[in-house]
């Protein structure tokens, strides 16, 4: 093996905080060989992104490399002048980021943003750079590249924008491509396409890749070698096959365990349920449309949910899965009367939800509560945690005021928080704890149905598992019924009894968990399942 292309030696990165300089990466060493894919895996706060930014010389102002070296082609990048570093950035080392929606400049055309790199680093003329930009868009498989080069980022989908980012990063045929969670914000099928593209282009251009991710499944499918990071330190590294089959560190094992394995367990033979009870929630022909303004002020309706029907039994969980834009969240919010449905019937616990108005509707809301996706933005930052949980009780007034605080304390303990934490503000909690507050708030009115709208999608895998456990326990203890909205098939498999797969406003497949996961009837479901990255490809002794 030749000398490594890039080597990081004993790197220590510190961030300035109120309490002085705090290390976020410590004593990290790794190397990257020409043409290979190295994955850095870890949770948020593990220092994996900081490492990437340090290699690019793009640490935030409050950060600095406190010790160690980053050697690229015989030079220490930490000691380089900024002007020299700029000759490497975007030229020898390209980078793509997590958020394709915000990583492109909204006021320049995508063609210009790619051409700019070529003009800057390769002194190409305007016409030549534009022609090459079109070729690059074609290479990342943007259809009608010539026409699309003149469009703006907001006119493209998330997947297409990430393709543009890739085209931009690879424009100068860099020796290294750093991809920081490049597909985390994308749907699984789009993720699979982006990975195919990255693999193919990396092979073609002999680019070495550093892939930063939190998902061991992605590591197994993409990487040659892997470095596992925890709290700024390397806990383990090695080839992917070695690490996945013989993980040494407990943390690595828990990361591997968190990857969904969609091959079903032994088939449950007692599947025919006693259909004695009325389902708690029954939805028939639910249709939701939104007006879209078209040219010349003509109104047109966009059908987000197209006459879907499903039932949720008492004490069970129905998962609605689908990609962004499939209508899954809209359908769930229509059930809770948070968006208006145009047609259909929603019966919850014998009440016709869609016909309710005014005070009766307000009362009925006690019965349905929602846990939202983002624990950072769904809690009012100016209210104390206890007040947040208490507020629904104050609004609906089912409980005498004197008993409410006691109930809040009880709820806090139920969701695994301390009583004393009632007096803290949301920003003093971690993401997982905040989601526990959201759950307590949802439970405060004793609802019969809880809608979990991507309730664990924003959390790190290990926290995610804890919250799912909590939801399980609460269901068992309190007999809760969940309508579980998610794009993540692994999570869905762990949580649900029944599954409905939505695609473009329709339910394309609907059945018990085992039926849907083990023998999907529709091509769409099969593609969706196949697109989920798994560690099976590198397992030496496949399960079963």
């Amino acid at each position, binding site marked *: 093996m030749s000398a490594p292309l890039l080597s990081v030696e004993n790197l220590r990165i510190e961030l300035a905080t109120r309490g002085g300089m705090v290390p976020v990466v410590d004593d990290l060493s790794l190397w990257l060989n020409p043409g290979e894919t190295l994955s850095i895996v870890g949770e948020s706060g593990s220092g994996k992104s900081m490492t990437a930014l340090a290699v*690019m010389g793009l640490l935030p102002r409050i950060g600095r490399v406190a010790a160690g070296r980053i050697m690229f082609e015989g030079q220490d990048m930490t000691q380089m002048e900024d002007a020299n570093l700029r000759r490497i950035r*975007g030229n020898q080392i390209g980078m793509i980021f997590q958020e394709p929606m915000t990583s492109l400049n909204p006021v320049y055309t995508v063609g210009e943003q790619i051409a700019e790199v070529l003009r800057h680093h390769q002194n190409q003329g305007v016409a030549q750079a534009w022609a090459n930009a079109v070729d690059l868009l074609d290479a990342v498989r943007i259809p009608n590249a010539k026409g699309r080069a003149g469009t*703006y980022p907001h006119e493209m989908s998330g997947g297409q924008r990430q393709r543009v980012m890739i085209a*931009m990063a690879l424009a100068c045929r860099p020796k290294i491509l750093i991809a920081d969670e490049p597909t985390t914000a994308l749907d699984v099928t789009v993720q699979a396409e982006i990975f195919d593209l990255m693999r193919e282009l990396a092979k073609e251009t002999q680019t070495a890749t550093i892939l930063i991710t939190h998902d061991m499944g992605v590591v197994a499918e993409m990487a040659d070698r892997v470095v596992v990071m925890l709290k700024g330190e390397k806990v383990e590294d090695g080839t992917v096959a070695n690490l996945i089959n013989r993980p040494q560190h407990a943390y690595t094992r828990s990361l591997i365990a968190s990857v969904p394995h969609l091959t079903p367990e032994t088939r449950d033979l007692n599947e025919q349920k006693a259909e004695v009870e009325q389902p708690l929630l029954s939805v028939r022909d639910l249709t939701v449309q939104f007006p879209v303004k078209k040219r010349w002020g003509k109104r047109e309706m966009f059908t987000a949910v197209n006459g879907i029907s499903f039932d949720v039994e008492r004490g069970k969980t129905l998962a609605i899965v689908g990609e962004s834009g499939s209508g899954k969240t809209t359908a769930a919010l229509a059930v809770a009367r948070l968006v208006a449905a145009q047609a259909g019937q929603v019966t919850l616990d014998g009440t016709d939800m869609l016909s309710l108005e005014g005070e009766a509707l307000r009362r009925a809301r006690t019965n349905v509560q929602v846990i939202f996706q983002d624990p950072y933005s769904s809690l009012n930052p100016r209210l104390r945690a206890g007040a947040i949980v208490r507020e629904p009780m104050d609004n609906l007034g089912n409980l005498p005021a004197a008993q409410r605080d006691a109930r809040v304390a009880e709820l806090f303990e139920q969701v695994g928080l301390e009583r004393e934490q009632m007096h803290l503000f949301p920003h003093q909690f971690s993401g997982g704890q905040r989601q526990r507050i959201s759950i307590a708030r949802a439970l405060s009115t004793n609802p019969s149905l809880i809608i979990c709208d991507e309730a664990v999608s924003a959390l790190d895998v290990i926290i995610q598992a804890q919250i799912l456990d909590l939801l399980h326990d609460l269901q068992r203890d309190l007999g809760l019924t969940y309508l579980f909205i998610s794009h993540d098939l692994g999570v869905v498999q762990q949580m649900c009894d029944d599954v409905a797969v939505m695609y473009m406003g329709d339910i394309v497949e609907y059945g018990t968990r085992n039926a849907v996961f083990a023998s999907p009837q529709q091509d769409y479901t099969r593609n969706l399942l196949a697109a989920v990255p798994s560690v099976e490809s590198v397992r030496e002794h496949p399960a079963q």
Partner: protein
Amino acid sequence: MGFLVVLAQRTLYGLLLLLAVLVLNFTMINLAPGDVVDTIAADMGGASAELVAQIRAEYGLDQPVIVQLGNYIWRVFQFDLGQSYFYNRPVTEMIFERLPATLLLVFSAQIFALVVGILLGVFAAQRPNGILSHIVTLFALFGYAAPVFWTGILLLIAFSLKVPLFPVAGMRDVTVEGFFPQVLSVAHHLVLPMLTLGSIFIALYSRLCRASMLEVLGSDYVRTAKAKGLSPRDVTMKHALKNALPPVVTLAGLQFSAVISGAVLVETVFSWPGLGQLALTSILARDTPTILGILFFSALVVIVGNLLTDLVLRLIDPRVRGKA
């Protein structure tokens, strides 16, 4: 939506707005007690009731207000703003004599304030807590807080009397002949009034631009621009600035009316032969047609200024173009 469609739509809105302004102005002026005949009578040292009634009839002031309004709107649509009671000349003629001077002052002050304000804002955003950033803020606030006539007089004393770099008053040197020398002469006369009027708005624009730049500099696409290896200047001036501009341009559009009212004072201080002086004399003389004419043209300038703002915003931000 096509550019021309939007232009036509906005122009239509502008015309409707102008009609509303006409009605409002007329009504408000007529709500105020007293009219030009009172002034004339006062100037004559008193007049008999018959004479007053006769003069009123002459000017059509004895008719019901609603008829006067109808007549007024009808005449305006024929580009006739009436006859000045005080100067006894057509109002349109007087306004057109003076409008170019005011337009020149207003637009040059606005552009000067925008350019300087934006540059200061961009500069201050580079090191938001640096000492230079604070100096910029202080300087801008000084311009904002100081009364415009005081700033004007101070500049006059400094740069016309102590260091005679610029002329004291007027708009051009009458002894100069030839087109280009005259243009230069006007530009020379323009400097101090423009600085004075612009200084109020520099503070607003630079504060907003600084805040807007700080937000944009923290965004993902600026990080992308850095990751491309672009120079700090390209990152700031190309990628960040264009995204930071829309709020500043929007504010500038809203400030057009404030610039015009500031111009009234500045014109008085520098004897700039614009609408401001005319406005002052006609208000004192209760010369209703002239006041209404000036208000009408001020409204027109504000509306056109806002139309320009809209069009500039569409040029800057492609996402605005998608919307009506």
